[in-house]
C-alpha cells in the first residue's frame, strides 16, 4: 500500500512527467564546464593567498612599501668630482609625485669613525674596523625600540644594523669557515667601542646593537646622535643627502619607475623587483580568475540554454499541469532541485580538486619558507559564486515557467 501510494505521490508523478527531454549529455557538459570554471577561480584565489606571504616580508596589517634611492654613480662623475647628492629642489620634486607618500633623508657622519669589538676574555684581543653611520627620521625605521635615543650626558650609541649583514656572516662567512653562527640575541650583547675623531676631539664611546632591520641596508643611529656628533666632530658644513628613503604606494608602479629612470635615480635592494614580481603575480592571478569566471559564465549560459530548451519542449505539459492546479513554483521545483543538486556536486568536487592541487604545490612553497595562507577565502569565494549561479538559475527557471501561465489563443 505504501509503495503504491509512493508511486502515485505528486512528487513522483511530477518528476516522471517533467524529466522527459532532460538531456544527460547537456547536463554533463554544463557540469564539466562549471566545474572547470569554478576550480580555476578558487584555485587562483587560493594560490594567491598561499604565495602572497613570500612577497610580504613585513607582517604589518596595512602594508607600506619603502624604497631607498641613490643617484647613479657614473665614471665621468667619479673622475670629474660630480655630485651624487640630492638637492632640496630634487627632494621637493620627488615629494610632490603622486606615488610618493613620504621622503626621508639619510644623513651620514662627517668625521672619522673606528669600531672595535673585544672578543672573549683574552686580555684585549680585539677586532677593529673603519665604519660609517647613517641616520634617517625615526618614522622610517621598522624596528620599534625604547632604547632608540641618545643622551650626550650618558653617551651610549644604539645601532640598528641591516639583517642582511648578519645573514651574510651566518650563511656566507661562518658556514664556509666553520665558525659558529650567531643569533641576533647574542650579537646584541656584544659590546662595541667606537672611536670618534675630528674637529680637535677624540672620544671613545660604547655602542650596542638594538635591532636588525629588513628595510635598511646600512648601519643606522638615532638622528639626535648624528646631529650632536656632526656638530662636535664634523666640519660644520651642511651637506645634502646622497640617499633618500621613500614611502611609496606601490613599489611596482610604472610611472614611478619611469620617473626614477628619467632622473637617473637607482633603487637599492630588490624591493622594486619584488614589487614588480608581486605586481605580475597579481596580474597573472587576476587574468586566471577572469578566465575562470568567463568559463563559469559560459557554463551558466549552457545550463540556461539547456533548461530553456527543456522547458520549451515540455511547454504543453507544464501548462497542462498548471491547469490541474499545480502552482508555478511546484512545477518549477523538480527543475530547481535538479539544478541545485548539480551545483552542489560541482561545488564540492571543485573544492576537492582545489585542495588536491594545493596539496601538490604547497610542499614547494613550504620549501621556500612560507606555510601557505588560509583556505577560508577560497571556500567563501566558491560558495558565493555557486550561490550566485544557483540564484541566477532559479530566477531564470521561475521566470520561464511564470511566462507559461497565460496561454496564447
Amino acid at each position, binding site marked *: 500500500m505504501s509503495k503504491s501510494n509512493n508511486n502515485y505521490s505528486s512528487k513522483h*508523478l*511530477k518528476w516522471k512527467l517533467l524529466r522527459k527531454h532532460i538531456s544527460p549529455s547537456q547536463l554533463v557538459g554544463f557540469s564539466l564546464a562549471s566545474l572547470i570554471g569554478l576550480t580555476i577561480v578558487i584555485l587562483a584565489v587560493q594560490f594567491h593567498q598561499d604565495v602572497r606571504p613570500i612577497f610580504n616580508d613585513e607582517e604589518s596589517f596595512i602594508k607600506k612599501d619603502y624604497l631607498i634611492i641613490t643617484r647613479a654613480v657614473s665614471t665621468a662623475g667619479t673622475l670629474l668630482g660630480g655630485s651624487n647628492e640630492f638637492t632640496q629642489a630634487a627632494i621637493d620634486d620627488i615629494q610632490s609625485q603622486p606615488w610618493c607618500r613620504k621622503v626621508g633623508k639619510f644623513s651620514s657622519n662627517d668625521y672619522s669613525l673606528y669600531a672595535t669589538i673585544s672578543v672573549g676574555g683574552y686580555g684585549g684581543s680585539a677586532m677593529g674596523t673603519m665604519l660609517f653611520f647613517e641616520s634617517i627620521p625615526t618614522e622610517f625605521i621598522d624596528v620599534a625600540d625604547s632604547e632608540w635615543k641618545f643622551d650626550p650626558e650618558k653617551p651610549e650609541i644604539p645601532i640598528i644594523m641591516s639583517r642582511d649583514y648578519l645573514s651574510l656572516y651566518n650563511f656566507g662567512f661562518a658556514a664556509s669557515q666553520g665558525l659558529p653562527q650567531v643569533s641576533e640575541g647574542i650579537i646584541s650583547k656584544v659590546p662595541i667601542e667606537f672611536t670618534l675623531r675630528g674637529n680637535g676631539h677624540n672620544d671613545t664611546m660604547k655602542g650596542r646593537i638594538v635591532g636588525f632591520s629588513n628595510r635598511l641596508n646600512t648601519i643606522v643611529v638615532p638622528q639626535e646622535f648624528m646631529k650632536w656628533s656632526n656638530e662636535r666632530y664634523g666640519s660644520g658644513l651642511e651637506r645634502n643627502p646622497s640617499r633618500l628613503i621613500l614611502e611609496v604606494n606601490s613599489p611596482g608602479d610604472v610611472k614611478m619607475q619611469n620617473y626614477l629612470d628619467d632622473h637617473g635615480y637607482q633603487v637599492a635592494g630588490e624591493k622594486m623587483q619584488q614589487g614588480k614580481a608581486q605586481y605580475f603575480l597579481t596580474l597573472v592571478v587576476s587574468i586566471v580568475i577572469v578566465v575562470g569566471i568567463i568559463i563559469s559564465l559560459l557554463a551558466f549560459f549552457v545550463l540556461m540554454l539547456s533548461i530553456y530548451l527543456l522547458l520549451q519542449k515540455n511547454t504543453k505539459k507544464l501548462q497542462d499541469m498548471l491547469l*490541474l492546479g499545480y*502552482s508555478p513554483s511546484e512545477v518549477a521545483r523538480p527543475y530547481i532541485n535538479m539544478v541545485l543538486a548539480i551545483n552542489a556536486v560541482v561545488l564540492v568536487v571543485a573544492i576537492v580538486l582545489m585542495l588536491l592541487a594545493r596539496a601538490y604545490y604547497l610542499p614547494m612553497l613550504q620549501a621556500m619558507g612560507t606555510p601557505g595562507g588560509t583556505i577560508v577565502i577560497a571556500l567563501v569565494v566558491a560558495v558565493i559564486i555557486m550561490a550566485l549561479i544557483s540564484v541566477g538559475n532559479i530566477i531564470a527557471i521561475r521566470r520561464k515557467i511564470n511566462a507559461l501561465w497565460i496561454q496564447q489563443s
Partner: protein
Amino acid sequence: MNTITLHNTLPKVFAGRADTGSEIWLREVTFERGKHYLISAESGTGKSSLCSYLYGYRTDYSGTMAFDGRDIRQLSVAEWCEVRTHHIAYLAQDMKLFPELTALENIMLKNSITNHKSEQEIVAMMNMLGIGEKVNSLVAKLSIGQQQRVAIVRTLCQPCDFILLDEPVSHLDDQNNAIVAQMVMAEAARQGAGVISTSVGNNVKISVDKEFKL
C-alpha cells in the same frame, strides 16, 4: 464560490461584430451554484475560449467576468491555483491528459494535490465507466473514448462549486454518456455544485435548468 457572472464579454477575435446572436456574448449572464446549465454552440463560436477565460489561462476578451462579483482579471496566481483545485472542476475539450503516464497515474496527478478521492473510489469510478482493466495502461495506448472517460474521472477528483465540462461526451456512446451523466450529477449533488456543460450536438444527458445558445 456561489456565482459566476459574465458582463458584456466578447472574445477579442469577435470584436466589432454588432450582434453575434449569442445568448452569452455581450450579455449579462449569471451561473449559480447548484444549478445545471447547457451551452449549446456551433463550432467556432468561442465555446472553448469561454472555458479558457473561466479557467484563467487566457485573457483575450473584452468585458468582465466575475466570481462572486470579483473581477477574475484581478485574481493572483495563488488564487487561480485555489480556484483550480477547490472551486471549479474543469474538463477540457482536448482532455489534456499525459500520454506517457498510465490512466491511474493521470488521475492521481490531480488527486494527489486535492486528496479528494481514495484510490479505491477512483478505481470504482473507472470500473463503472468500463475502463477498469485500463487502470495501468498508458494513456497513449487508449482509444479516444477511453481517454475521455479517464479525463472525466480526473475532473471529478476535486472539491468544487462548479463543474465546467467542455464537450464531455463527444466521443462516448449513449450508454457511457448516461453513466457519465449519472456520475457528474451525483458528484454535483454531493458537493452542491453547479454544472456548466458545453456541447455541439451530443449533449451529456443531465437535467438542465437553463440552456444558452452561444
